[in-house]
């Protein structure tokens, strides 16, 4: 049995049936990391002794009758901006290369409490923005589908680790698309939950009002299981929402019959960077959803450029405010891409920022109005498959190929789900957007997409087979 081809739910059943042990799952995953990671560089730190200790504890507890739930005994890894008590957390940066937090982030603590097995810390673009870069303490992660191509970022190691079947779940963070981008370009499910759904406490901030925490996984069900563990109110996170968390798997298999899905076609159809294979994949997905009984209609939203402008104009000064002192005194210690992006925050005036916040209210109202008429929206995650390392893109520029930042601006839950492969063998995806706190509907539609497009039958990269 290849344990890494078992879903989280299947691993759980095998554990409880005694067919596998958590230690076996951990050792399998560690062996895969040892074999694959020298070429992919997904991990910046492998916590082997911690993983084996977690796994042995999980086995002992199951034998003793203590079952912590669906993540019990499941290997996972964390983007290296999540604080881990006693374990180095670098943000992939020289500036925090010796940082060892005293406490876990809330996410890390919840995964430990749920019985998860921490395999290590994962590469990221520096401070979740600067990359892919070769002037940082660790190399950039590479795309398992073709290592000459980037994973997308900033949750680059998370995308590579899950796509290369090192772990079934890795945590990412998403300020402008840093979960959904790597998910799209690595052929994974990646959800940015509603703003406030998952505590950000103990996660190094990029932009307080745009930051979200969420998982990248091999399947929609894996994502639903993970979010079930993570979602919930944290009174110590000022953005955390005190909203009940439903059972995310209850409606997962209900399909899309009679659902209404809006498509803001102008977002992607007229974008100069839109690749024909992306547009064809979106249209094919829409057609398949209609075949399943969904009503899928084109809708109008405000211009995409307004969403992108608001997102960037909010993000840059918030990020600069966080890094101001270090940017003034240690500019040379940042990677070049990071520094070049952060300095722009100093060039945004207060009026610019306020105007972006006025746009944010207006744009959020427009998306809410659309979601008053539709159960969810479907749009592109990215306008093209993953680019090569030698043809990099600026994911924040106005010509960015990413289509993710609108829902950081508005806070709506949004998920990238793979739908097929481009002629060059790289994954294609779509993005599902839901009403605030209705991640359950996002999962339901994404699960249907996963099924109708046949993604479940797509072979993973030969590299990782």
């Amino acid at each position, binding site marked *: 049995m290849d344990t890494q081809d078992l879903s989280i739910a299947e691993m759980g059943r095998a554990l409880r049936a005694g067919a596998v042990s958590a230690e076996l799952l951990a050792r399998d995953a560690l062996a895969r990391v040892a074999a694959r990671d020298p070429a992919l560089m997904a991990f910046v730190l492998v916590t082997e002794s911690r993983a084996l200790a977690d796994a042995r504890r999980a086995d002992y507890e199951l034998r003793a009758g203590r079952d912590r739930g669906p993540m019990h005994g499941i290997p996972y890894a964390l983007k290296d901006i999540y604080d881990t008590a006693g374990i180095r957390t670098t943000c992939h940066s020289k500036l925090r290369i010796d940082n060892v937090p005293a406490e876990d982030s809330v996410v890390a603590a919840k995964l430990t409490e749920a019985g998860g097995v921490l395999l290590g810390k994962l590469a990221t673009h520096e401070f979740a923005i600067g990359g892919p870069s070769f002037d940082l303490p660790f190399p950039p992660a590479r795309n398992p589908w073709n290592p000459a191509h980037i994973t997308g970022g900033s949750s680059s190691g998370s995308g590579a680790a899950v796509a290369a079947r090192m772990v079934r779940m890795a945590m990412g963070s998403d300020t402008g698309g840093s979960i959904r981008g790597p998910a799209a370009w690595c052929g994974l499910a990646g959800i940015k939950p509603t703003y406030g759904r998952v505590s950000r406490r103990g996660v190094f901030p990029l932009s307080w*009002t745009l930051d979200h925490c969420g998982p990248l996984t091999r399947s929609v069900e894996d994502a639903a299981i993970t979010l079930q563990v993570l979602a919930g109110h944290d009174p110590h996170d000022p953005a955390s929402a005190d909203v009940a968390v439903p059972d995310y798997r209850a409606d997962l298999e209900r399909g899309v019959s009679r659902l209404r899905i809006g498509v803001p076609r102008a977002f992607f159809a007229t974008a100069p960077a839109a690749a024909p294979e992306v547009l064809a994949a979106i249209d094919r997905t829409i057609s398949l959803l209609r075949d399943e009984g969904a009503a899928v209609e084109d809708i109008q939203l405000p211009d995409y*450029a*307004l969403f*992108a*402008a*608001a997102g*960037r*104009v909010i993000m*840059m000064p918030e990020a*600069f405010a966080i890094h*101001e002192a270090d*940017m*003034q005194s240690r*500019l*040379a210690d940042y990677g*070049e891409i990071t*520094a*070049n*992006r952060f*300095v*722009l925050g*100093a*060039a*945004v*005036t207060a*009026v*610019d920022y*306020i*105007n*972006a*916040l*006025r*746009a*944010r*209210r*207006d744009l*959020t109202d427009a998306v809410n109005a659309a979601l008053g008429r539709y159960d969810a929206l479907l749009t592109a995650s990215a306008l093209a498959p993953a680019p090569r390392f030698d043809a990099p893109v*600026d994911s924040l*520029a*106005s*010509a960015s190929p990413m289509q993710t930042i609108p829902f950081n601006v508005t806070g709506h839950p949004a998920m990238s789900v793979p739908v097929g492969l481009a002629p060059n063998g790289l994954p294609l995806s779509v993005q599902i957007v839901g009403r605030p706190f209705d991640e359950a509907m996002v999962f339901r539609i994404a699960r249907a997409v996963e099924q109708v497009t046949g993604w479940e039958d797509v072979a993973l990269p030969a590299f990782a087979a």
Partner: protein
Amino acid sequence: MPNPPAAEILDAELETLLARAGIRLPDLRRDAVRAAYADLRGQIALLHGRYGPAAEPANVFRLSPAEDK
């Protein structure tokens, strides 16, 4: 806000803003930052002049009365 100004004015504007923020940019990085600033400036321009006085920013907040403990 009118259309973005000429390149030399943009350069001077960027220099002033960075100096005000206490940032000294290495010469080798200036071209890349200037290009990114020009792009950002275009995005900033999109957001100016769109909203009247009643259009409030998203950070306007609402207080709740203190609850009895």
